[in-house]
């Protein structure tokens, strides 16, 4: 493990904070009036998912936790843990429900995801910016909801409900932004 200065923090990297592995979710420089620079950082605990704020001196050195991104297949949810497997060596890791968070609406069995691993332990996953899922339930276009205009609700294969344009049909594969749960297009 190497030490890095707070001034070189980047969003998404992992560092040790008070003995715990945390992911940096935000960092900004702060100059209290006429003083030296500080780095105000938001840290998400890997264990608890809780976010705390801490202000470092800009030259302060912290342990960076190097991570490998591994392509792993999502297997199943057991209790509060999501299990993933490396198809190359059948190694399994798990991520807690807290870590997966809202993405649980869109996670699909059998899909490959990028899991960030350190020392054999899965820390988190790189959430995809887009997911592609099949529509399993859709209202008839003809009976379109006048309240929503040219839009309607559909259900996709993971059970999530998404608002789409009125022309989307059952069985179609659509693209969704998992961060906003918004329709982002059709899979051609």
């Amino acid at each position: 493990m190497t030490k890095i200065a707070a001034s070189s923090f980047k969003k998404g990297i992992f560092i040790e904070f008070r003995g715990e592995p945390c992911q940096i979710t935000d960092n900004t420089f702060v100059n209290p009036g006429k003083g030296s620079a500080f780095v105000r950082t938001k840290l998400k605990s890997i264990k608890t998912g809780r976010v705390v704020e801490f202000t470092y001196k800009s030259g302060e050195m912290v342990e960076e936790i190097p991570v490998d991104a591994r392509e792993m297949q999502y297997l199943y949810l057991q209790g509060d843990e999501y299990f993933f497997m490396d198809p190359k060596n059948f190694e399994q890791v798990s991520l807690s429900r807290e870590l997966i968070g809202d993405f649980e609406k869109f996670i699909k069995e059998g899909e490959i995801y990028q899991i960030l691993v350190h020392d054999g332990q899965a820390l988190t996953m790189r959430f995809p910016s887009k997911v592609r899922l099949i529509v399993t339930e859709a209202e008839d276009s003809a009976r379109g909801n006048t309240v929503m205009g040219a839009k309607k609700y559909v259900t996709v294969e993971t059970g999530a409900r998404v608002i789409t344009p009125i022309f989307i049909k059952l069985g179609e594969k659509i693209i969704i932004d998992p961060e906003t749960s918004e329709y982002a297009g059709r899979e051609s």
Partner: protein
Amino acid sequence: MKNWEELKLNQTFWKPFKIRMEVIKAIREFFWAKNFLEVETPLLVPSLILESTINHFHSELITQNGLKKRMFLTSSPEASLKKLLVAGAGNIFEITKSFRNGEDGTENHNSEFTILEWYEINATYKESMKMCERLIIYISNNLVQQNSKFKIFNFKSNLNKQIQNDKIYYRNKDISLTPPWERISVKDVWEKYTGIPFSDLYDIRRKSYPLEKIIDASRKLGYQANKKNSWEEIFNQIFLNEIEPQLIKDKQPKFLYDYPAPLSALAKIKKSDERFAERFELYIGGMELADCYSELVDFNEQIKRFRREKEVIKKRGGKDFLEDQDYISALKQGLPKSSGVALGVDRLVMLFANSKSLDKVILFPNGET
């Protein structure tokens, strides 16, 4: 979407900018009524005073002879205003832009921001505290008046809840402006939130704040600190983590006063307690709004402090800057006894407009591009 695009689509988006206009108008009226001279000082200058760690914007002037001269954008109008005090201007104020590089894109910071700075002759920081109270209440009453008289805001919004006499509604909280506002010393606020006696930081015999003592205190609180850090850096880290986050809970504006001497390079030291300088910061809604000093006028003391500051800057690895010799010569001629205040106008507008971010009270914020 850029602000101007959103303004085109959404009428209510104009509200904070109309409030901004009224705030600045009220500031001017307040100081004109007190016969303060309003002045304009340059934003582009050839040299700086202290603080090279506040990253400055650099530029290049092409002189009449075609030569190139390095210039800077000011981070505050202080140097020019003090020269005017020496020139006999009397009470002065200025509303101007200041520039600080590397502070972009946070809720409370924009690289280019609007600052109100005023100097009152023969006043100390205590008078300036009262002036802050009067100024902000004047602005608040003026907004209430303007809103009811002309319905200038013209929105069905909860503006009536937002701005009432002697009250601001900010971030889901009512902040009472009724004076006198709370005043608490830095020593007391330190002890309250760190639990460490302030006397642990000071060496009475040597009359100083030894670095080792604050390193100890800082480690006790769980921070990393070593001899390479400056006293001010260690103190400020503790302040930013332990004390400042508590200030957002206040239902009233708060003056933090009597700052430790190492944090107040150009402030007069208290006669009654040499550990502290006559300096205050005003916090409202958890934001630092204003900074004030009883100005140090003893030239020999000023030179001593400049040298010490330069040492601290060098130690931090700060860039070499061109010192403003004109400023030094003005100080040598004698700065009149005065108190100076610098106030963030954008942040003040945020309070009155109940905006969570500077982006919403600046028409074209730097972070937009």
